[in-house]
């Protein structure tokens, strides 16, 4: 029973929405466009929007000069590593809270959430010195662990809300039929929980990819991911717009694409199921 709208009304909505949408998207679009310009055309006055000499030179230069693939590789290891490790720890916990809840389940969930509220800067030095003392400064292990821990409450919460949507009667029926825990997992968890697990994984890879407090403070060069690599452009390299743009485009492209697939999960994951 959709409300009827006139064609003109719809056209007006479309025009306003597209204008605002483009305006919000513009900084990203402009960065992508600038990455294909020469440095000279990147700062041309008046600015050139589309009719410049398209070139891939900046991408080649960024890769050559700073070994971009190294940073990309670090980003992949850290974001995927921390997410997979987080899932391994979180799946059993969320599973048991969703299907065999006890009186304390709610308290445990709330307590887990409260650890997410701990400001990173409050524990900066212990983590920093701990990593240094254990020889883990600028290592993948330290970042994988720390980022896994900061995202673990989100992973558990998301999984919990997904698992709770799996009807409990199915499990009861399986148990009545004498299914063991192993069978329960293989025949029920797997098919019904995979979509939720996949969504959780997607959102958490994005969050880990963009994490920019610990990645900057716990790396120097060896394990530095793209967030830290871009931070090294803060000056004066940042004044080379075309190269800054090429580096930026490469850093955000994979996650932009993943992000478009995870709009819905974003709401669920970051509001802890409070908005549906």
């Amino acid at each position, binding site marked *: 029973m959709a409300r009827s709208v006139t064609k003109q009304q719809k056209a007006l909505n479309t025009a306003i929405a597209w204008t605002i949408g483009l305006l919000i998207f513009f900084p990203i679009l402009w*960065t992508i466009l600038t990455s294909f310009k020469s440095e000279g055309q990147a700062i041309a006055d008046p600015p050139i929007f589309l009719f410049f000499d398209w070139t891939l030179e900046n991408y080649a230069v960024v890769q050559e000069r700073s070994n971009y693939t190294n940073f990309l590789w670090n980003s992949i290891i850290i974001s995927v590593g921390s997410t997979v490790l987080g899932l391994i*720890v979180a799946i059993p*916990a969320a599973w048991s*809270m969703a299907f065999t809840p006890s009186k304390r389940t709610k308290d445990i969930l709330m307590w*887990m959430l409260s650890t997410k509220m*701990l400001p*990173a800067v409050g524990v*900066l030095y212990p983590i920093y010195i701990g990593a240094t003392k254990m020889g883990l400064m600028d290592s993948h292990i330290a970042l994988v662990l720390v980022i896994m821990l900061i995202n673990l409450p989100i992973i558990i919460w998301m999984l919990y809300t997904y698992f709770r949507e799996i009807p409990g009667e199915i499990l009861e029926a399986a148990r009545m039929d004498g299914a063991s825990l192993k069978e329960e997992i293989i025949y029920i968890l797997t098919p019904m929980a995979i979509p939720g697990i996949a969504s959780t994984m997607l959102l958490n890879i994005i969050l880990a990819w963009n994490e920019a*407090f610990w990645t900057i403070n716990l790396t120097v060069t060896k394990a530095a991911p793209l967030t830290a690599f*871009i931070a090294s452009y803060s000056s004066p390299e940042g004044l080379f717009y075309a190269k800054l743009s090429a580096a930026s485009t490469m850093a955000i492209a994979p996650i932009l694409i993943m992000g478009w697939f995870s709009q819905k999960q974003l709401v669920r994951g970051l509001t802890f199921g409070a908005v549906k």
Partner: protein
Amino acid sequence: MATQHSRSAARIMMAPAVTLLLGWMLVPLTATLYLSFRDYRPMRGGDLGFAGFENYTRFIGSSSFWPSIVTTLIIVGGVLAITIVFGVLLALLLDRPMWGQGVVRIMVIAPFFVMPTVSALVWKNMFMDPTNGLLSHLWRFFGAEPVVWMSEQSLLSIIIIVSWQWLPFATLILLTAIQSLDGEQLEASEMDGAPVLARFWYIILPHLSRAITIVLLIQTIFLLSIFAEIFVTTGGAFGTKTLTYLIFQRIIESQAVGLGSAGGVYAIILANIVAIFLMRIVGKNLD
């Protein structure tokens, strides 16, 4: 119908997550608390003994403390106001029938997926640079003197950058909430001839109030600890030193660990005050 067996199984399944989070919470927190009562300077003699509450009083007594609190409040308040007001408007707009709704949605949400260092540097250099930035071109086009954003309007610059990053989050959540609004109620009020503004004020806004509160609280927790956006733009200069940044400088840059840790304890207390309210709302939803 939980049996003894399944209960102990549940305990085993929970153990790794609970242990890890407990360790993550207790170990560094205890260390920070301990350090906050020590006169600890790694570069100048190391641990110089028990300091009582001196770090706490010195942290508050330093000339940068109150300005950092004001800066933090301005940034958090500014970003909240912008993202919530525009978030509501955008959500209302995106809810209306139009062509290419999916594409517009994608464009609006995109900034959320840009890593903080990239968005801060792109804004700082390509938009807010006083000679070559796009905004300067725009200002000159209208015959105005370009703004020297990062030094003269430093707080506003950071508010703009951070708002751009968080507007998608607010919009998306508010849009989700609007879409759950009962269409029939709106239709009835429309037929009763309620003016648009009244409909917004008496039906839509009350319906959104819960979602707005949640956006407000979640964003506050994240915004209290923004770091990279300041790190790569002003480095804390020009009055952009937030509480988080001040603590970072004390601990990492000047290696006054005891002093910085006392600051860290203050930051934890501040975040907890906000967290209590958020947890209450989330908790209610669990029942």
